[in-house]
């Protein structure tokens, strides 16, 4: 298996994880509270894609704008129900309320779609393409393309628009933002909408290749959390880097014996380079990063980790 092929898989998986982590970190920065329903938002996006796909019978790329709009609306509802009434309470109150939102979403999905795994429609179509010695699925390439587009869009929004500057001001210092007339609550609500839309996009991207079940959100939540711990609590580039690092551990570490054949002949090679060991090694790496660089790899933490 070629290294370039594995790198492509890392990029595809990491790009989708990055969208989850980005939504997570945007809300974290805007509110100072961890949104524990972010993983279940990904799940909701996956089921939303299934629902739209069944109704419209069009490729996922056509569904994407509709899904983003629907998920943004869901984000507004979550902000109104789980954040706004508690925004002057300690952050723990929001932790609990977003956990409750996640449980509600899980049970709603279980009721509406059943517990069995379902696949969302592909972004463009099934099939594989070969180039430069790489045999890639169209879906993997489309995931990378869509994720890059969304990240670039976010970058333009935050860096080059007045609206984005207001969002950033709210994230950096709510009191000062309020003092200079920025409608902070509205900005926070919009941030929830963007975070939910990103989660929805990730749900669409992941639910075709990896399916979706009502309980699949918990795994994405853990990955998003690890990604921002690695990258730097509150750092947007750090969240992307953390997501890519997680994907690299998932895909590259177990494949090391394929890239370095002498490792195949090593005693206990199966165990040392298993998927399970890769998770352990990742967790150890997180601990090492926390000890060596408590603010994460990008070292410019905006918020204090709870």
């Amino acid at each position, binding site marked *: 298996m070629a290294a370039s092929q594995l790198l492509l*898989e890392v990029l595809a998986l990491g790009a989708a994880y990055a969208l989850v982590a980005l939504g997570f970190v945007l809300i974290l920065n805007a509110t100072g509270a961890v949104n524990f329903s972010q993983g279940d938002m990904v799940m909701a996006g996956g089921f939303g894609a299934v629902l739209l796909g069944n109704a419209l019978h069009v490729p996922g790329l056509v569904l994407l704008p509709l899904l983003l709009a629907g998920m943004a609306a869901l984000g507004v509802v979550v902000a109104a129900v789980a954040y706004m009434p508690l925004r002057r309470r300690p952050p723990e109150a929001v932790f609990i309320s977003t956990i409750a939102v996640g449980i509600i979403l899980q049970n709603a999905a279980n009721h509406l779609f059943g517990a069995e795994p*379902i696949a969302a429609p592909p972004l463009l179509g099934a099939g594989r393409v070969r180039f430069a010695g790489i045999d890639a699925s169209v879906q993997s390439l489309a995931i990378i393309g869509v994720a890059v587009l969304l990240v670039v869009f976010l970058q333009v929004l935050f860096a080059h628009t007045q609206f984005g500057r207001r969002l950033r001001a709210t994230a950096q210092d709510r009191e000062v933002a309020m003092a200079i007339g920025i409608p902070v609550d509205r900005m926070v609500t919009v941030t929830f909408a963007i975070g939910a839309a990103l989660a929805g996009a990730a749900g669409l991207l992941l639910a075709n290749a990896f399916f979706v*079940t009502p309980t699949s959100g918990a795994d994405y939540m853990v990955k998003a959390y690890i990604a921002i711990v690695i990258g730097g609590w509150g750092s947007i580039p750090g969240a992307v880097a953390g997501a890519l690092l997680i994907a690299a551990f*998932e895909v590259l570490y*177990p494949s090391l014996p394929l890239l370095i054949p002498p490792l195949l002949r090593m005693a206990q090679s199966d165990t040392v380079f298993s*998927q399970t060991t890769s998770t352990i090694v990742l967790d150890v790496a997180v601990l090492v990063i926390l000890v060596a660089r408590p603010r994460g790899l990008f070292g410019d933490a905006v918020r204090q980790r709870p």
Partner: protein
Amino acid sequence: MSRGALSWPDCRWPARLWPARRRPIAAWPSAACRAASGLLIALLVGSPAHAAGPATPDIPVLVPVTGFLAAEGSSQRNGALLALQNPPAGVQPKFAVTDTGTSPEGAVNALERALSDGDVTAVVASMLGTQMLAMLPIALAHKVPLTTMSGTADITRKGNPYVFRFFPADSVVKGAQVRYAIDVDHIKRPAVIYQTTAYGQSGHAEILKALEAAGIKPVFEDALDVSVKDMQPVLAKARAAGADSLLLQLHGGPTALFLKAAASMDIGLPIIAGSGLAQPSTVALLDPAEIKGACAETGASPVSAETPEMQGFLARYRAAFHTDPDGFALGQYDATMMVLDAVAHGATTAADVTRVLSTESYTGLAMTYKSDGHGDMAHAAVIICYDGKSRIPAVVKHYDFPIATP
């Protein structure tokens, strides 16, 4: 019943038992007294109406329909409901479905609540092993039989006489999986890929045991967490290790991911999967071409509808639940029908039903069930294979294992 044959009581308080000064009333009005006495006698000796009335066993359904085992638990619930809604003549079961979630506390609370409601005849109990282990002491204390589809080996190794498992144990299905791989695919260098969960580890141990008995050692083994998304590395490593076949013990979703990756890599090795590939919900995630030639073990394959009876079950299940049944649904249907059949033949109490489940055999739709003395009722397995054109598998081999008695 004539008054000459059985004289009415005189409706006076027996003076020796209840002195006159402490009687609530001096004497009941004669008509009311006689009516009450008549009713009492009818209840005691059994009136014709009572003898002809249906038996009404109480069979609560306590299964996980939310949480990570919701898909399998829903199948179990559906199988039980189909039986309870179509009982044998003369039986009108009372039942209520309670979601146990996936915590032991949820199962214990559900069982205690059900038992507090009255005389429970038998329980359709969770297929989640940790919940079953928590429910066993309560069943023992209340002497109520539990029927389950749980694969956890320990539940029938505790010496509890009130647990009855209607799905083949791992030793049975994994034995069939390995036997088929040896007999048909002539494997000599298998790779064994399994889940890190209790289900995966238990199956892995039985696969190794069966391979060892045949003098075969796997050339590659890997345990996968259920969250693993990319199956290509493990497949590539199995191929690099020189495997001539792939033996799987994975849950449904990961099985689908694995088969998808194997098809995209054109892996070209025989795949004999665990029961995850026998689940219609798993197969629905895959194109028929992606499972061409793949086989799987299972207790039963109701969608294959081998017999007219099975075809009838399939039609009724689809009509009732608008989905396809799996082996869990069929197993729990058979289990519940065995309980109802026992009631129809006069087993009116939990003790009666326990005795029947412990000692009698029952020919269900999937197989003939009989306890091995520990509560393991199912001793047969089938191998199913997919032809690449359809998602309906063909049953290619039946394996009946001798009942291991204590």
